[in-house]
């Protein structure tokens, strides 16, 4: 009975969404206060209905109701509760429902908390947001009904892919979707502004928190996925340039550009058309990502059980929403005038530079992801290429270097025109710390590579630049000598958030550099009591135990890792075998220290010729991994700090959600 309720309220939600897509818009055109206010209520009702539907699906998973096809296919009665729940979005139908839930949640959040937004714009935004809702609700109801019944009822389910039974992956999709779908707000704001034909500083101020919230979620979501890949896949790597990873990275790059360009709209009423275009493109890339994952046209490690039919439906949605928005842009953009000036050395120039490089970076990732498809299309299937990490490392990374290097300079520049003389002194200091860092790294790690030392220097340059800027901002505030320097940014949570996020990039670079340039790896087989040596460390296999988990069997190794100074740690890597899925997973033992991760994986055992039992063992030393995660966490914190700025009207919803 409960699944039927879930399906029924989903239908109701579709009807409500359809009304919401029209009524507030009509209200805005007619300047009818009542109709516009109705949009707020409808948005909340829509969210409420989708929540009921989603809850009923969770309920079906929790009680293991195998009369539902989706539960039978993705769950098992022996599964731990957490994974029963995460099984809801571990499949196509459920994840689409989560998608729509988040979409309607953002709509409701705007309806409830967006009180300071002009009523006509708000009505239009809610209307556009609901149009997307209609499309996806229809998509679920007509192609991906999660509430399909099964007859006869099977006695038990087929289980969830064991690789997915992991806390990291349980929370990765919701966060990622909060990010993806969060950009729908920026999209709706952009389309609403185009319809209204008016973009001003207020629009910039209103749209920014939503974009920032989406960015925070997307950053956290990508990081969580990457962290999962790091500890679960057992290859010591954390980013593989897989199409599905790229699909989340492309909107991230554009979203980051959007955050920066919307500042110009807010402060200077400039880059208006560009910001609107970015808002549209960011969300379209989110949709494209959704499409790529589900259509099965690309090969990826992460694809769901794919279905071209559904892919076509998503393409149709893409075509209508994004095509409509871009068409609107082509027609309406000329009436939106930018009327501002700035000097070649100014904050505006820096943000322009930032946007161009982020956009190029995004274009490269998009090109590398779609190129195989385009080539196959152009050659009628005769010619295929693989585009993997080496391509992106060569093309994407060099583009990012001038971008991140500018982080040190950009925030120091004042709006309209920068004072160059004062800049020199500050930058000299940053350049000094960069050189000193390179020098120190070369002494500490004489075997190089020199590029790694330079990269560490880059991180120091950024960090020093950020800190100098921050310090001077604080001092200026105290001495109240604002005018004689032209540095006008008040020390606010928002500015501090920016500094923190930029520092996060510097820390991230330290992590990326260490983990990729200085990684040490050894793959070998070990018998009990055997010891191998890597650098100053010796690794000994003490014993291997056999045991049982809730729904798997396991082999658990006990290793001791001894450093030359005799401090020793114990590590327990595991190999798990899931009988239901007939699949084995590796659980790496990771010992994190400030300077390096020790990463140990145990594989299958075998008998050697002299009848000794040996286990395959992979041992990695990943230097600076901790800093990689710390860097991303700092970026997220920076975003949150900036969001919590009281001067931004709409900061509350994010805190409620978290």
């Amino acid at each position, binding site marked *: 009975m409960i699944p039927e309720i879930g399906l029924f309220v989903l239908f109701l939600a579709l009807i409500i969404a359809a009304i919401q897509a029209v009524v507030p818009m009509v209200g805005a055109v007619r300047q009818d206060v009542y109709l516009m206010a109705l949009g707020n209520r409808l948005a909340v009702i829509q969210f409420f209905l989708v929540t009921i539907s989603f809850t009923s699906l969770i309920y079906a998973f929790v009680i293991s109701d195998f009369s539902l096809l989706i539960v039978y296919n993705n769950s098992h009665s022996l599964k731990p509760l957490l994974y029963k729940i995460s099984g809801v979005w571990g499949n196509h139908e459920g994840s689409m429902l989560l998608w729509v839930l988040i979409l309607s949640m953002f709509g409701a959040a705007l309806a409830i908390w967006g009180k300071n937004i002009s009523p006509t714009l708000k009505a239009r935004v809610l209307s556009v947001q609901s149009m997307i809702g209609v499309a996806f609700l229809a998509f679920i109801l007509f192609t991906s009904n999660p509430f399909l019944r099964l007859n006869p009822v099977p006695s038990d389910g087929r289980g969830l892919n064991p690789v997915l039974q992991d806390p990291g992956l349980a929370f990765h999709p919701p966060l990622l979707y909060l990010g993806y779908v969060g950009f729908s707000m920026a999209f709706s704001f952009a389309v609403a502004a185009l319809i209204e034909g008016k973009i001003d500083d207020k629009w910039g101020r209103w749209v920014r928190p939503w974009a920032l919230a989406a960015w925070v979620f997307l950053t956290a979501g990508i990081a969580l996925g990457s962290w999962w890949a790091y500890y679960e896949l057992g290859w010591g790597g954390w980013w593989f340039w897989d199409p599905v990873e790229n699909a989340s990275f492309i909107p991230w790059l554009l979203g980051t550009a959007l955050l920066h360009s919307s500042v110009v709209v807010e402060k200077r009423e400039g880059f208006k058309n560009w910001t609107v275009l970015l808002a549209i493109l960011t969300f379209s890339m989110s949709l494209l990502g959704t499409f790529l994952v589900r259509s099965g046209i690309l090969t990826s490690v992460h694809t769901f059980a794919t279905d071209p039919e559904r892919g076509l439906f998503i393409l149709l949605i893409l075509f209508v929403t994004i*095509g409509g928005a871009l068409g609107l842009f*082509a027609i309406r953009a000329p009436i939106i005038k930018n009327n501002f000036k700035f000097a070649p050395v100014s904050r505006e120039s820096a943000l322009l530079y930032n946007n161009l490089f982020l956009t190029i970076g995004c274009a490269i990732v998009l090109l590398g992801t*779609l190129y195989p498809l385009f080539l*196959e299309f152009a050659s009628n299937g005769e010619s*295929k290429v693989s585009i993997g990490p080496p391509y992106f490392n060569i093309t994407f990374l060099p583009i990012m270097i001038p971008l991140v290097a500018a982080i040190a300079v950009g925030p120091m520049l004042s709006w309209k025109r920068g004072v160059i003389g004062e800049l020199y002194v500050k930058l000299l200091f940053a350049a000094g710390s960069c050189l000193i860092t390179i020098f120190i790294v070369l002494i500490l790690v004489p075997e190089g590579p020199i590029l790694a030392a330079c990269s560490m220097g880059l991180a120091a340059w950024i960090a020093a630049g950020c800190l100098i800027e921050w310090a001077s901002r604080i001092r200026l505030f105290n001495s109240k000598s604002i005018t004689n320097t032209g540095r006008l940014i008040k020390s606010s949570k928002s500015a501090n958030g920016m500094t923190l996020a930029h520092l996060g990039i510097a820390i991230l670079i330290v992590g990326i550099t260490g983990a990729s340039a200085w990684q040490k790896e050894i793959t070998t087989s070990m018998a009990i009591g055997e010891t191998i040596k890597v650098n100053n460390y010796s690794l000994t296999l003490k014993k291997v135990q056999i045991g049982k988990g809730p729904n798997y069997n396991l082999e658990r190794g006990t290793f001791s890792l001894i450093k030359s100074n005799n401090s020793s740690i114990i590590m327990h890597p595991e190999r798990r075998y899931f009988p239901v899925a007939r699949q084995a997973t590796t659980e790496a033992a990771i010992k994190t220290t400030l300077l390096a991760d020790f990463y140990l994986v145990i594989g299958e055992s075998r008998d050697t010729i002299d009848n000794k039992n040996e286990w395959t063992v992979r041992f990695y030393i990943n230097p600076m991994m901790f800093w990689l995660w710390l860097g991303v966490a700092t970026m997220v914190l920076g975003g949150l700090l900036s969001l919590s700025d009281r001067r931004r009207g709409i900061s509350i919803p994010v805190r409620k959600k978290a």
Partner: protein
Amino acid sequence: MKRFILIIPIIVFIIIIAVLSVMTLQTKEGRNPSIVPSALLGKEAPNIELPMLARNIPGGFKGSDLVGRVNIVNVFSSWCVPCLAEHPQISWLATNGFPIYAINHRDNVSDASNWLKKHGNPYVAVGFDPEGRASLEWGVGGVPETFIINASGIITYKHIGPITKEILKEKILPKLHEAKR
């Protein structure tokens, strides 16, 4: 000029959507993104020596044996389920006058011999490739795969995956006749 710049996004977008739609439609009609055309098409069959599987099974061949007539080379394993599914089609080809050589991929002697005993041995010769080393020379990605080699020993066609009845009729037979010309 300005107008034109504003239209660029939607043009690029429509091109992307068009290509994606075509590819999605092709995927719907059976395009498999992970199947790649062989690099060996139009080249001579690799001349690596494949040893015989067992004394009572005719076998052992190398690329240069495959000249003088149109031959088929089929890669199979006893542990491969789709290989069993295509076995009737392979046998049909053999009884209808097409000589088929086999590469027994990553198998062991007893399993492979029993499998052939149980399901019939349609092969002119079975080459044993327990480590998959010879398969690498043939550019094999997995089992089953089937090659068509013309009379001059040139590989003219490669099919990846099991040969169903439809594929036999629509692809393999026409390609065999093409190779004969």
